[in-house]
């Protein structure tokens, strides 16, 4: 329909659909082994857009449903992809438009406190009484509920979990999220991309590189610009450094949740070393605000290359020692083995990606599938486990952290010279772009629509946590209540990345 809208990557395909076509695409994808990545929408006076993205083979297909006039309802794809339910419920809460064909009509991001629909400022279309969220309950002898959160005993993000247990065994666990909702979709409307990139970097603090990169890619793809090669390599470097830092932290936290605090302190030392080097080389411990549309904001120059490379190889050696300790620690392995098993069949049905997907036999890694620079010039081995338990997720993390540490050295070795930043040209109003990045949790998607000049009309940020949270719910039943923190940590979904 509008060829200006097609993104420049050969792996991205946007399909213009009507209502039937939109549902037909979902059906076709579910029948041909595609998996759902994200569902999002954008609605204004003149324009109503509903998107759903699927990954099949090695390509991302995005169904784009453009509606005009007054919209009473939207088509739901939950009959084909049940995992879309929460995304659609969020669209309904944020925009006040309901989905026809959806099974679950409970609110999701709205906790009954929004007097007006947040993104349209219209009155709520239907009134929900205040009161408790209707959790699905289990009935039977000796079954009782354990509510946990949203305020926890530890310093973690807010989220509520409702356990239906008999004794120590969990029969069902249901999440209630949305406590860290900040209105990202609303904040991202009609702002210059220099501000949008700051917002993107703050969608989820631990994935600041991933979201900033996805946002930049979506803007660049909408404008149709290429960034310099050195910038692409540096982006790859930053992405890997973020992955290393988070995996190191997670591995330590997993040991700590199993009671071995030795593991936590050892991994935190390594993570701290890496973060301090980030600070000294790039000026920010978490690498915030380094990536922007057009390239990378800071060129480390030639001096710290040897230093970064040396540190990576030192950390690699330490990680190998710690991996051996983990593997030979009977108590730790006993806690990890067989705990929180997510079988590959379930993972496939849910369309899991990222670390958790790769621990359950889902071989998706954009670094291998797309081989975009710098991964086209570096070797890359993808992690894959089929156990689906905590042990498998630990093994995937160990494998990936080692691979990333090796990649960091290889990228530094092959780092081309040249510019790292090109001022992006003015965008054309109405153009749209999609960016997809293999973040440390999994695939991060960002969609942006330009308004002309450097103004972005709207953006949507999709964190893999949208799929990880439902997958966690599927994993918990049958496990012990006391094992939940360990399983949750092995998934480590983001609260803020999900609540938006």
């Amino acid at each position, binding site marked *: 329909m509008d060829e200006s809208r097609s993104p420049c990557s050969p792996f991205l395909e946007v399909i213009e659909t009507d209502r039937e076509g939109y549902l037909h695409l979902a059906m076709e994808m579910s029948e041909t082994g595609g998996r759902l990545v994200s569902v999002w929408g954008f609605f204004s006076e003149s324009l109503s857009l509903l998107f759903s993205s699927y990954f099949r083979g090695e390509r991302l297909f995005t169904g784009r449903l453009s509606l005009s006039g007054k919209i009473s309802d939207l088509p739901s794809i939950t009959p084909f992809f049940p995992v879309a339910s929460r995304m659609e419920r969020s669209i309904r809460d944020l925009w006040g438009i309901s989905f026809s064909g959806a099974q679950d009509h409970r609110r999701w991001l709205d906790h009954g406190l929004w007097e007006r629909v947040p993104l349209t400022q219209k009155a709520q279309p239907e009134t929900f009484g205040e009161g408790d969220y209707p959790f699905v309950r289990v009935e039977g002898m000796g079954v009782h509920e354990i509510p*946990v959160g949203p305020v926890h005993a530890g310093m973690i993000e807010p989220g509520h979990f409702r356990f239906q247990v008999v004794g120590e065994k969990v029969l069902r666990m249901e999440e209630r999220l949305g406590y860290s909702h900040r209105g990202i979709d609303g904040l991202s409307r009609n702002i210059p991309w220099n501000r949008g990139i700051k917002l993107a970097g703050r969608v989820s603090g631990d994935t600041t590189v991933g979201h900033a990169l996805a946002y930049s890619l979506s803007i660049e793809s909408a404008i149709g610009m290429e960034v310099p090669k050195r910038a692409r390599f540096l982006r790859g470097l930053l992405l890997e450094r973020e992955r290393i830092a988070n995996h190191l932290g997670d591995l330590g936290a997993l040991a700590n949740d199993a009671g071995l605090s030795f593991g936590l302190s050892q991994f935190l030392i390594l993570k701290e070393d890496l973060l301090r080097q980030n600070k000294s080389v790039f000026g920010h411990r978490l690498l915030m605000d380094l990536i922007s549309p057009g390239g990378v904001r800071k060129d480390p120059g030639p001096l710290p290359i040897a230093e970064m490379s040396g540190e990576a190889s030192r950390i690699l050696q330490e990680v190998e020692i710690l991996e051996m300790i983990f593997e030979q620690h009977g*108590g730790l392995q006993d*806690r990890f083995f067989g705990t929180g098993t997510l079988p590959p069949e379930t993972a496939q049905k849910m369309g899991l990606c990222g670390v958790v997907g790769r621990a359950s036999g889902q071989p998706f890694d954009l670094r291998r599938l797309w081989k975009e620079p710098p991964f086209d010039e570096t070797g890359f081995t993808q992690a894959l486990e089929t156990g689906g338990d905590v042990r498998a997720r630990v093994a995937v993390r160990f494998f990936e952290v080692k691979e990333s540490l090796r990649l960091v050295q290889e990228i530094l070795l092959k780092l081309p010279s040249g510019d790292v930043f090109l001022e992006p040209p003015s965008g054309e109003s109405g153009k749209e772009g999609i960016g997809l990045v293999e973040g440390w949790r999994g695939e991060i998607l960002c969609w942006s629509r330009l308004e002309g000049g450097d103004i972005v009309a709207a953006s949507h940020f999709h964190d893999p946590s949208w799929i990880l949270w439902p997958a966690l719910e599927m994993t918990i039943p049958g496990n012990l*209540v006391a*094992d939940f923190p360990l399983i949750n940590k092995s998934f480590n979904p983001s609260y803020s990345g999900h609540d938006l």
Partner: protein
Amino acid sequence: MTQTSTVPHQWIADLLFKGLGELFQTASVIFFAPIFLGWVNLCRSCLQSRRPAGILQPYRDLLKLLRKEVVLATGASPLFRITPYIVFGSMGLAAALVPAVTTDLPFGPAADAIALVGIFSLARIFMALSAMDIGTPFGDMGARREMMIAFLAEPATMMVLFTASLISRSTSLSTIAETLGGRHFTLYPSLVFATTSFFLIILAENSRLPIDNPSTHLELTMIHEAMLLEYSGRHLALMEWGSSIKLLLYFSILISFFLPWGISHESSFGGLLSGFAFLVLKLFILGTLLAILESTLAKLRLFRAPEFLAAAYLLAVIAFLSHFILEV
């Protein structure tokens, strides 16, 4: 004792001195219990490459809590409020019974080893009841897990104490410590098994790793801590202090039964002082051992706890049997 009837002054002075000895022992156990915990935590920190908070940190925590106001949950019954005093009182009473510094305890005959187990149970039952009193799910969860651990640990404790009683022909704690301490050094196989068993019991009863993790922040995995979640201010201080006394007492029992050398048998000034010095020395060694153990162990899956305590019970039974087979 025959002299006492002839010289009444001497008898009174004797009792007074014994009383002072008793007081010294009780007070030193109560007031030095947090320092033992501080030492264990300090060792743990050092072993985990963390900068330790200092050996006096438990005192600072207690002072802080004592100064803070008490926040009571809605619906807390008087049971919830008196429990901290009952727990602390039971631990104080137990401190007067366990021959840690001296075996010459006038209170000693008041309660024997079996009664001591009862005193610990009393504190535990009140703690579990108060945890359920509030009605939060964590309290219930902690209470039921604690009771599961307790009912598995208690038989093992009794078997260990019986083995020690068989050797000394008495269930009185002072007599056991005196008999075992007064003998020439011979290796009793039964005592080796009993010591091992008792060490496992100490870990389980004091919510240490691998059964419970005293430093966890994960509310769903807690056992002991889950019962204390609703306590605050001086109530929490008394509960925490009580737990540290309990830990010290369990180690004192271990010392007085299985490493009794150096415990004073009379209430003389020098005897008390040397008894105290020996106690401190042994506690420092055992505290370090506990910290090493806790730093190298992962927490057991909750349903492995019965296996752990079954092992403790089995060792206690072997100790009991080997006394009859090898030593009688």
